[in-house]
């Protein structure tokens, strides 16, 4: 069983799309960033609008209203499902079926936020995130939305230019895949760690080390030595 937070979306085309859902900690931090942005905006505005007396006071209250209830809604709809805080933490909101969140979903999840905040400090919301399978707060459950990590575009591709080494030991597809993935990630690991990981295979492959595994990886993805 996979011990990660992947959430699978079935599509009409018959493939499953996989997304990692975000847990309590990153979501709380994103909330904190948003709270800071909102309070900073209000502080600056209140100083500026004081000049205009009552008129300024009215505009100030209108802005408080919009920030209070619609800050999240507007950002989620016009900014690919992410408030600035979520963007900073690499999160985004989407419908549970993987489509972009729309007015209905976003509005419901953000109005129900009022209940998530109860009885104080987002207690209901936190409990709900911790207890529900896809880390949804009550608003998410009522709206049918999820918060996921926006996928990072990562460098992938060929391991490196190590000469391909034929793999003689029979291996299952999963095992082969592990070796190829090791080849892809090797450049992101430091040398000691890569050696350490490669050494795990010693019982199966004699003298398994980093270069040898990279060679296998290149051979597995289809390279052949200058043939």
């Amino acid at each position, binding site marked *: 069983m996979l011990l990660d937070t992947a959430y699978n979306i079935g*599509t009409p085309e018959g493939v499953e799309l996989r997304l990692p859902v975000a847990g309590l900690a990153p979501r709380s931090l994103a909330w904190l960033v948003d709270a800071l942005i909102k309070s900073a905006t209000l502080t600056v505005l209140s100083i500026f609008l004081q000049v205009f007396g009552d008129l300024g006071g*009215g*505009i100030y209250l209108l802005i408080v*209203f919009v920030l209070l*209830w619609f800050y999240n809604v507007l950002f989620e709809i016009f900014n690919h499902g992410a408030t600035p805080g979520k963007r900073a933490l690499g999160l985004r909101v989407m419908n549970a079926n993987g*489509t972009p969140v729309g007015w209905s979903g976003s509005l419901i999840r953000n109005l129900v936020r009022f*209940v998530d905040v109860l009885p104080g400090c987002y207690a209901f919301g936190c409990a709900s995130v911790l207890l529900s399978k896809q880390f949804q707060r009550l608003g998410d459950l009522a709206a049918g939305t999820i918060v996921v990590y926006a996928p990072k575009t990562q460098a992938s591709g060929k391991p490196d230019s190590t000469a391909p080494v034929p793999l003689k030991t029979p291996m299952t597809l999963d095992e082969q895949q592990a070796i190829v993935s090791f080849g892809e990630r090797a450049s992101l690991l430091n040398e000691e760690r890569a050696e350490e990981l490669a050494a795990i295979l010693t019982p199966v492959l004699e003298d398994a080390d980093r270069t040898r595994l990279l060679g296998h990886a290149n051979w597995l993805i289809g390279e052949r030595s200058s043939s």
Partner: protein
Amino acid sequence: MRQEAFESRHAESWAIFERWIAVLSAPRSRRGPDDDPVATISKNFPAMYRKICHHLALARTRRYSIGLQQRLNQLALDGHQHLYRTRTPFFTAIGKFLVREFPGTFRKQWRFMLASTLMFYLPAIGMALAVVAQPEIIYSLLDPVDVSRMEEMYDPANDVLGRERDSGSDIQMFGFYIYNNISIGFRTFAGGLIFGLGSLFFLIFNGLFFGAVTAHLTVAGFTETFSSFVIGHSSFELTAITIFGGVGLMLGYGALAPGRKSRWQAIRSRARDGLPLIYGGTLMLVAAAFVEAFWSSTVWPPLSFKYAVGTFFWVLHIFYFWLMGRNEP
């Protein structure tokens, strides 16, 4: 097929698809001159998307590397988001909403609307009768300080009606009404998630408050100033609050009696059903704030005219919810 051969065979289509996604997501101004026009993209998009899905499935069953799988997963996800996005033209949607969807949903959910209306007006009438019979009862609900401030506001000796106005800045009051009243509306709705209890609380509390204040000011003999101020926006405001309460009760009913669905499924579908009422209620409260700030507080129109306008709004509401939206399925 080895991964490398697979990648080199299809790399071109993936790059094209990636570029299409970028073109579709970018604003018009940032599109390059040699990008395909949107019409071409739209025509070929679904076929290309299905191809990407096919590649993703192949990459998974053939156990190609995680990196490649992630890339294809990402491409398919982006495609999915573009293909299954829902869009409706804004102004058509607004017109259809006001003429059919909002009143239609109201009619369809009449049980909840009725329940919420009763939950607001019955406590209001009860409290009003109680205050008329025994004026001290109002102090069980309001502070003496609040009561005297309320009296001061509607004292006929004042020139300006309504909540206190220092320099009569209507905009300021507009901001306050928007912020305060719509927040109350939203809370009345959201509280319904707690098995309807939150909505019931706000409905009954506001009903008691409204009844108490009305009766108290009537007993005090401030009827003219009070009702001429309130009548203009009351139809919008009170109806909107009961609508929000009604949608809250829908959520609560979903939680209490989910029927054949799971509890959360029931709540979700009730919330979606009630959404037009949330939009409509919000619009009504914006209208209420507008009327309250710029019309209700004016002193120049003769009282009879203000009563006439207020009555007109009430009649408008009754006919709107009575006659409109009958053909909504």
